[in-house]
């Protein structure tokens, strides 16, 4: 039942949202990603920068984990390492042989291809035969509600539509782990809200495991099954919050706002400690 309907004060609602039963990985039908004591150091000697320091994190199969932290906490570095674009200096990353797709803050679509061909290219890279590709592209664009925009080039689409195409392209990669690096950071609140609904629906339908990086605490509480708070420089896990899925969540609901402000307070405290 939605905490809102009980009419409880905001504080209690927030606590109700955050202090749910701590779930075991078994509830998630296994582990999708396991990061064990990973560190990333750029440079050597005196000038070395510790971007990530002995960070351990597990994402359950089908779980939606949001990582929140101030800028410079190594969030993007973390995702690059999980995606295999970057190697950790120490520690191990286990994706259990799952395919991993990544989405960035910019759609990163190829400007010389139409929306449909952008999605098609991801299928080609997987060597999907031509006969199947056309149908799959149509299905994927249908999934993100862009079926009639297949022939448009990226610059003819709005920012939100471009991110939808990028999402379709990520889904085309047949991945069961989706890494998202502030994918909605550049969109207006209204568009972002719509995309939250879509993402939630698609992830539930496809049982995707998601590691979602954002600096927007409300967005994290809105979307996540779990919110992980990272400290800055070096990035380390300070706190984890379980957000039980009791019913549909709205980014502007009192419970989400209350939970977000609790997490923000904790984040502020951490930032004060480190200057």
């Amino acid at each position, binding site marked *: 039942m939605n905490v809102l309907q009980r009419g409880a004060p905001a504080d209690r609602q927030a606590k109700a949202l955050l202090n749910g039963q701590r779930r075991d990985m078994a509830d998630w039908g296994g582990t999708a990603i396991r990061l064990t004591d990973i560190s990333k150091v750029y440079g050597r000697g005196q000038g070395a920068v510790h971007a990530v320091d002995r960070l351990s994190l597990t994402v359950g199969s089908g779980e939606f984990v949001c990582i929140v932290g101030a800028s410079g906490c190594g969030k993007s570095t973390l995702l690059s390492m999980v995606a295999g674009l970057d190697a950790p200096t120490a520690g191990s990353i286990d994706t259990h042989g799952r395919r991993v797709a990544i989405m960035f803050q*910019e759609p990163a679509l*190829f400007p010389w291809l139409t929306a449909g061909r952008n999605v098609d290219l991801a299928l080609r890279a997987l060597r999907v035969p031509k006969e199947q590709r056309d149908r799959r592209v149509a299905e994927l664009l249908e999934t993100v*509600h862009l079926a009639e925009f297949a022939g448009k*080039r990226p610059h003819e689409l709005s920012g939100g539509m471009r991110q939808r195409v990028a999402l379709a*392209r990520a889904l085309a990669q047949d991945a069961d782990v989706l890494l998202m690096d502030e994918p909605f950071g550049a*969109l207006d609140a209204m568009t972002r809200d719509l995309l939250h609904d879509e993402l*939630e629906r698609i992830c539930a339908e496809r049982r995707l495991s998601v590691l979602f990086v954002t600096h927007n605490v409300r967005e994290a509480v809105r979307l996540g099954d779990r919110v992980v708070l990272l400290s800055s420089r070096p990035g380390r896990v300070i706190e984890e919050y379980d957000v039980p899925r009791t019913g549909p969540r*709205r980014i502007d609901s009192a419970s989400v706002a209350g939970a977000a402000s609790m997490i923000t307070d904790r984040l502020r405290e951490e930032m004060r400690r480190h200057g």
Partner: protein
Amino acid sequence: MASTRTPAGAGGRPPAAPSDATQPGAEASAIAGLDSLEIGLPSSGTEPGRIARKAWSATWPKLLAIALVLGAWQLFYLSNFHGDTTSGLIKGPGAGLANLWDQLQHAQLWQAIGTTVQTAVIGFLLATAIGSAIGAIVSRIPPLRAATGSIISGLQTMPSIAWFPFAIILFGTSVRAILFVMVLGAAPSVANGLITGVDYTPPLLLRAGRTMGLRGVALYRHLILPASLPAYLAGLKQGWAFAWRSLMAGELLVIIIGHLSLGILLNNAQDQQDLTGAISIMIVILVIGIVVDAIFTKADRAVRTRRGLLTDGQPA
């Protein structure tokens, strides 16, 4: 609470819950965020008035340019510089254009144009093939890139005409000598264009391509080459300009018996002190250069428009 998530322009329709996206009308509200305002309405380019205005705005600068040139010519003629007008050496634009018209009636000029254009095409294609091959190899092998980068830039600063003695000694007075110099002049530009394009492939697209599983040849074919196309086209355009200049210098310097070209006609005009005839040939050379340049500009614009790098009405 519900009203705050009704999309702009949806007119108070109740918000579509994620589950009922199949219901009619849900499609529109599902994709329409505030940012849907970003998508401009397609401009209607079919009304006759608009087409005429567009044609006029494209034509008048060219007409004005021609008028300015003819005006300058007329002024030079009227100034009687060195007394050349009274001696009959210089003729006015009217007589000059009549001379050009007359020459255009004769097969000789057309034969010369045919020969020159043929050499130009062969030389440019050779330069493109060699330049592209060098560019592709050099951009793939970093040590080679470091070593040859300065050689390629250095070659570009070398005036191609300085290569002719070398080429004539090596190949004799032949078309091969001209082609050799054209390739030396044009290939570095083509290679440089490709290398620049590869170097400036956006890193974000490379990251996206790699996570999609594009590797090796596929990465080149589907990402790096298309991404470098605008820079490559710019290289081709510059390469053409160098090839064309080298060709003209070559046709004036390397006189081949029985080989009728625009350069030979220009040389003949010089030998006969025929200033008006020389101007006619120069106009032909100028027109060929402008036409080819226009083709490259059109290709460049087409590529940039397709990628949204050019907004409507922006000059090339």
